[in-house]
């Protein structure tokens, strides 16, 4: 069995999870605890990847990340290399595809925080940023963990979006889900079966962990 697609998937999931937790936390904070014009529109836009077929999302991402798309041209100006059909390209696609899975649990956790606790922090002299880091984040650990697990398992399982934006370049964009599809296409069922067998316990154990965290969080509340 070729282990490279599996390692690439794990690497992709780890990088996208790390980046998304950092990027989504302030956004979830804004959605949960602040008021601004157009909030409902922004929230619907963020959740759009959950409603769209992955191939549709992948198509639009291919257009905007391609050599003629604004994101593709911007990337090329900065780095000198194209964005589509690269590892960086599929990370960017995953960040958009998995954003709702990061935002939802975090937003729910931030909404549960007692407002008077935040006001108490302000009166005690903490800036909004310090309050976020010293009060909100430590009291939302279960929400952050749930977000990380959901993003990780969705990143490992992503297929349509990655195929559209990254294609199947070995060592670069050929992740395990695409490798399984190609193995089945070429009637290599044993190879495909082995890869599925490896994926199954990984996904199951992460879901089990998610359940344990949710139950523990309920017990605390």
């Amino acid at each position: 069995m070729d282990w490279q697609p599996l390692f690439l998937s794990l690497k992709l999931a780890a990088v996208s999870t790390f980046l998304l937790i950092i990027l989504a936390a302030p956004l979830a904070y804004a959605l949960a605890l602040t008021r601004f014009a157009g909030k409902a529109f922004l929230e619907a836009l963020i959740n759009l990847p959950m409603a769209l077929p992955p191939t549709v999302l992948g198509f639009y991402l291919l257009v905007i990340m391609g050599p003629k798309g604004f994101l593709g041209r911007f990337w090329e100006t900065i780095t000198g290399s194209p964005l589509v059909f690269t590892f960086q390209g599929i990370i960017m696609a995953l960040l958009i595809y998995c954003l709702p899975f990061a935002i939802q649990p975090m937003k729910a956790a931030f909404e549960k925080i007692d407002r008077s606790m935040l006001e108490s922090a302000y009166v005690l002299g903490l800036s909004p940023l310090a309050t976020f880091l010293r009060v909100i984040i430590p009291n939302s650990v279960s929400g952050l963990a749930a977000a990380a697990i959901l993003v990780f398992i969705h990143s490992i399982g992503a297929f349509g979006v990655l195929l559209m934006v990254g294609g199947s370049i070995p060592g670069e964009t050929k992740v395990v889900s695409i490798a399984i599809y190609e193995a089945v296409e070429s009637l290599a069922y044993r190879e495909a079966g082995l890869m599925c067998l490896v994926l199954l316990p990984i996904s199951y154990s992460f879901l089990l962990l998610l359940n344990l965290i949710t139950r523990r969080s309920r017990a605390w509340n």
Partner: protein
Amino acid sequence: MELKISVKKRLPSFELDVAFSCSPDKLLVIIGPSGAGKTTIIRMIAGLDKPDEGTITFNGETWIDTKNGIFIPPQKRQLGFVFQDYPLFPHINLQKNIAFAAHDETCVERLMKRFDIWHLRNRKIAMISGGERQRSAICQNLARRPRVLLLDEPFSALDAVTRKTLRKEVKKLKGELCIPIIHVTHDISEATQLGDELLPVVQGRIVPRWILQFRLKDLSFRRRAGIEDIWGQNDTYDDLEVSRI
């Protein structure tokens, strides 16, 4: 070190319009029925709410001046605010809670011993009682060396015995601190026991005769019910609250 307040704010059912001051050696009690605007007043002093119109100054420092667009955020006012529901931080132990915004960490142990919570220092907030939490909340605010102390119905969620003990603590504290202290309550016996000055607020206005009216109604109620007049004997007066009239 005088705190001067003159504010107006449109609330859902009336307009809050009050002007008063509090000097450093005084404990001012804002008393009135529920929904009179008492909490809104001290939230504006803390910077957690903004008035529509008015000024708040402390020791010559302007905290709010709506005409000149001045608003000093709560972080920069260096005051203490003890909330009704004592929102301590559940992710850290009690000692870390007290030291959370302490001006000087050496005062933490002294304060915790003074308020008899030192033995609970390693406990998480969920593991201590309501009275201990409220003492901790007062301690947490004092550790910051506040220039003004605001107490928003701090004993309302406590049982009568704990409430009585904490009232004594606050009374003692008043003698030790030389800062303006504003205490909000709807409990008239608490107000008369603690306050140097009473500020009756009804429907957003200062109504000085309200206390007298309350006393007269209370006396008449007690006479009709055949209850001895115990005005001023605070221990047995605890359960009678302003909202009854």
